[in-house]
């Protein structure tokens, strides 16, 4: 009895957790559950139907699905493997050496990571088209008509472009570990008589192994998520993966094969989920602990003659990842015909913005990006804060719930949300409205929002809020006035990033949009698939320009927020590490 009273009292005080946890269930778990249900229904969402195993038989008899599964695996494994060669090299160069170009590596990787894959696919399709690609045109100019022709709409092109992005992704994940690696470990090996290369192989790499393995798993997950790159660069060459196969079953098949699509999605989710759990188990405790070590006394490695090679590597990546694709997009947007060098023209811009639906799409995209971005970040922060107030079991629950959307490629998330909301009578009306996109986007960006929010909250010593509580502030006042205020810069950065993901996402609007409800991404895809490359490029360039305008605005806001603090020497690192120490101690004592 008394146990019950105590439990009841405890829950009453944590009442604010209830709506947050309810949202977790409604937004993250319910769609996943309904996706599983959908695999066993004979009818589309919201229609009367029966339970059935039919989808299994139907799927087993399709040859295409096995090819697609194999292609998904090849794409994920190959790109991850290649990225695992490149990313640690870049991380080493940027964090552990003194080469001059090291400072450009991280910004470069951030640009590549933040640019939607749709834009990359577009850019490479502009450059590498067999007939009118700019790169091929350039080769012909340089080498005459005998020049080799590069076709980006092929396995090589698909793998190359995906590897480019996977490298950035993995780099950003492992670079902090490289930065935190204690040089003393390496020095100890050097004085023990091992050379630099041997030290790197036998000491540095094993210490970093947890971080690298974790990154590898995330790379595989991202590879399995690949959708728009495959649609644009793979489809013309007949390369299909599971994500595009699901899209086909839903959009091109008649009648739409909901059960089969759901079953494939479910299997994909289970596979990705297993990978996520593996990553979690692997990194759970160790990842960040192994690479403590003091900062500050960082003596960079001297590469000697190798530094030219290293600089060359950075330049090549910069050209392939930033200069060439962005250059091609801009060039293509101002050229009358792709592949032909003519007078610069605004023609495409005029045409694309007078197309019916485009301005509407720009509006929709802007509202969704800003609005859903804010919602997702608020939700993420609420979850991160809830995490600090939950017991171990609650924390595990939230952690797993947050993994669920991670396991869902965008196309699967869109399908799951369809099942979840169209099946509920009162909610059916939101199908075909922007609200459907809102819900699906929240699911899609939740992992990123959670990540950003958790990193921001984790940076704050819990003592800061505790100090406010013991000073007499209510929980709300402490969380808004102290925690909210202090994480504001990270919140804004996360919001910006999430907004870009939403604006660049193609899976969700393709599946959940209607002819009158589209986003910039779906408009770009439509133009591209109709062969209106110039118009598509103009829209991409306009989007990038829009984001660049938004970027400085966000940056200014962030700086304004920071100004007051960093006029002063911020107690930053000291505070953080003290906080970490305190947290650790709190867990121990």
């Amino acid at each position, binding site marked *: 009895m*008394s146990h019950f*009273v*105590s439990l*009841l*009292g*405890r829950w009453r*005080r944590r009442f604010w957790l209830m709506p947050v946890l309810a949202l977790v269930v409604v937004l993250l778990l319910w769609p996943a559950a309904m996706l599983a249900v959908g695999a066993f229904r004979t009818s589309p969402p919201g229609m009367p139907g029966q339970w059935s195993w039919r989808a299994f038989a139907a799927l087993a008899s399709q040859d295409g699905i096995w090819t697609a599964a194999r292609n998904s695996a090849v794409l994920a494994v190959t790109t991850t493997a290649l990225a695992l060669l490149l990313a640690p090299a870049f991380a080493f160069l940027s964090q552990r050496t003194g080469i001059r170009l090291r400072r450009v590596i991280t910004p470069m990787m951030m640009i590549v990571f933040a640019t939607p894959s749709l834009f990359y696919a577009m850019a490479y399709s502009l450059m590498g088209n067999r007939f009118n690609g700019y790169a091929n045109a350039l080769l012909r100019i340089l080498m005459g008509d005998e020049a080799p022709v590069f076709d980006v709409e092929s396995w090589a092109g698909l793998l190359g472009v995906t590897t480019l992005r996977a490298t950035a992704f993995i780099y950003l994940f492992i670079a902090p570990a490289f930065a935190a690696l204690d040089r003393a470990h390496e020095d100890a090996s050097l004085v023990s008589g091992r050379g630099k290369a041997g030290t790197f192989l036998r000491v540095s790499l094993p210490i970093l192994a947890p971080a690298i393995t974790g990154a590898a798993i995330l790379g595989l997950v991202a590879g399995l998520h690949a959708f728009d790159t495959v649609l644009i660069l793979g489809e013309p060459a007949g390369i299909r993966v599971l994500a595009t196969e699901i899209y086909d079953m839903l959009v091109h098949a008649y009648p739409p094969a909901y059960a089969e699509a759901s079953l494939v999605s479910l299997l994909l989710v289970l596979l990705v989920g297993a990978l996520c759990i593996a990553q979690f188990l692997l990194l759970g405790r160790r990842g960040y602990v192994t690479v403590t070590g003091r900062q500050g006394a960082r003596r960079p490695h001297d590469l000697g003659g190798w530094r030219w090679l290293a600089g060359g590597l950075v330049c090549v990546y910069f050209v392939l990842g930033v200069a060439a694709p962005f250059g091609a997009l801009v060039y293509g947007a101002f050229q009358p015909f792709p592949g032909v060098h003519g007078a610069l023209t605004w023609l495409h811009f005029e045409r694309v913005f007078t197309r019916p639906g485009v301005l509407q799409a720009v509006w929709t995209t802007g509202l969704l990006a800003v609005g859903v971005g804010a919602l997702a970040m608020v939700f993420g922060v609420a979850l991160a804060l809830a995490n600090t107030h939950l*017991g*171990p079991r609650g924390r595990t629950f939230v952690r797993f719930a947050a993994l669920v959307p991670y396991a869902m490629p965008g196309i699967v998330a869109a399908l799951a949300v369809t099942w979840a909301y169209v099946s509920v009578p009162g909610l059916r009306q939101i199908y075909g409205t922007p609200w459907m996109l809102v819900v699906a986007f929240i699911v899609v960006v939740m992992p990123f929002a959670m990540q950003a929010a958790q990193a921001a909250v984790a940076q704050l*010593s819990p*003592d*800061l809020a*505790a*100090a*406010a*509580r*013991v*000073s*007499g*502030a*209510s*929980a709300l*006042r402490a969380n808004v006035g*102290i925690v909210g*205020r*202090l994480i504001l810069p990270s919140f804004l950065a996360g919001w910006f990033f999430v907004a870009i993901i939403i604006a660049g996402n193609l899976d969700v609007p393709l599946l959940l949009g209607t002819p009158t409800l589209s986003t910039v991404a779906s408009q770009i895809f439509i133009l591209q698939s109709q062969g209106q490359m110039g118009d598509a490029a103009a829209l991409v360039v306009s989007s990038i320009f829009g984001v660049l305008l938004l970027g400085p605005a966000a940056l200014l806001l962030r700086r304004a927020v920071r100004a*007051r*603090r960093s*006029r*002063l*020497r*911020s*107690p*930053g690192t000291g*505070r953080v590490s*003290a*906080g970490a*120490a*305190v947290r650790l*101690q*709190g*867990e*121990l*004592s």
Partner: protein
Amino acid sequence: MSGIRIEALRKHYGAARGIEHLDLEVEEGEFFVLLGPSGCGKTTALRCIAGLEEPDAGTIRIGATTVVAPARGVFVPPNRRDLGMVFQSYALWPHMTVEQNVGYPLRARGWPRDRARAAIARALALVDLGGLGNRYPGELSGGQQQRVALARAVVAAPKLILFDEPLSNLDAQLRARLRQDLRRVHRETGHTAVYVTHDQVEALALADRVAVMREGRVEQLGRPDDIFLSPATRFVAEFVGYDNLFEATVEQSGTDGVRVALGGRCAPLSARSSARLAPGSPVHLAVRSNRIRLGKGAAADRRNSLDVRVLDAAYLGDSYQCTVQWPGGRPLLAQVPADLWKQEGAALMGGPAHAFFPQDELVALPAGDGGRQ
């Protein structure tokens, strides 16, 4: 009325050990120190008093108010407990000036502005920080930051102030100064203080009473000199700096001491004991290295002495620390004042020597309570 009464407190963190069963009483106006190694539950206990943790069972009363009683569903949140707290990490809010930091508890309590301003000035003066009110925490040194934290804790004149290892991030000199400040502020404001630390020197300097904690319960409770001079267990002895421990058997037990046999060719020794130890029971003898007196010549029939051979001597500045071998067991440490070493060092190193154990400094402790691993 700001005494604290803790009864049967229990707090677990998942599988990790927290507090098993804690009973504690702190008198009003007292400076009470919880002393123990990391992981002993002292911080958890403090956070339970503050209301930052919810205990699983037991009760906590502050003054006449029951603030925690899970069995009855009672839990007063930290903001309604009228307390101040100083954190190890200072926990100053970086986006607020010193004045805003210190004034926060007053704003939270809804004080009128002019009264608050006066109180802030008083609190800053109390910690010698007058004139720094417009600075940001990032512009202050560690010691100054911790004094701001102290000012914030006292500004609203709470009856109870909690300290969570407030000095452990500071260097030795600053720590000594701040200790005096803490003591002075306590004297001037008259609050009840509960102070958590793992540093025995802090405990001795600050406390009216000390509770040594181990694995979530109180191992020994008493005045600082009780703890320092009469540790009740091997764990406490080791924790408060008894650096020599060796085994013996009780031969004869008296009212305030025991005679113990060391085995072998050693003569029996007299030792102090606070517990009644039955003859024949095994004990640990504890003695600080600076209380053993080394002398030239064999022990022979010298009182409470053992034959020793000096193996090594390390210079410590004002003394030499000698490693000495005695017949009964592992070598002991003994300190010899530097000036004495100048006269006798050569003789001690070369020839036979003896170690004298003043009876009051040799403490017999019941064996079998483990001690530190």
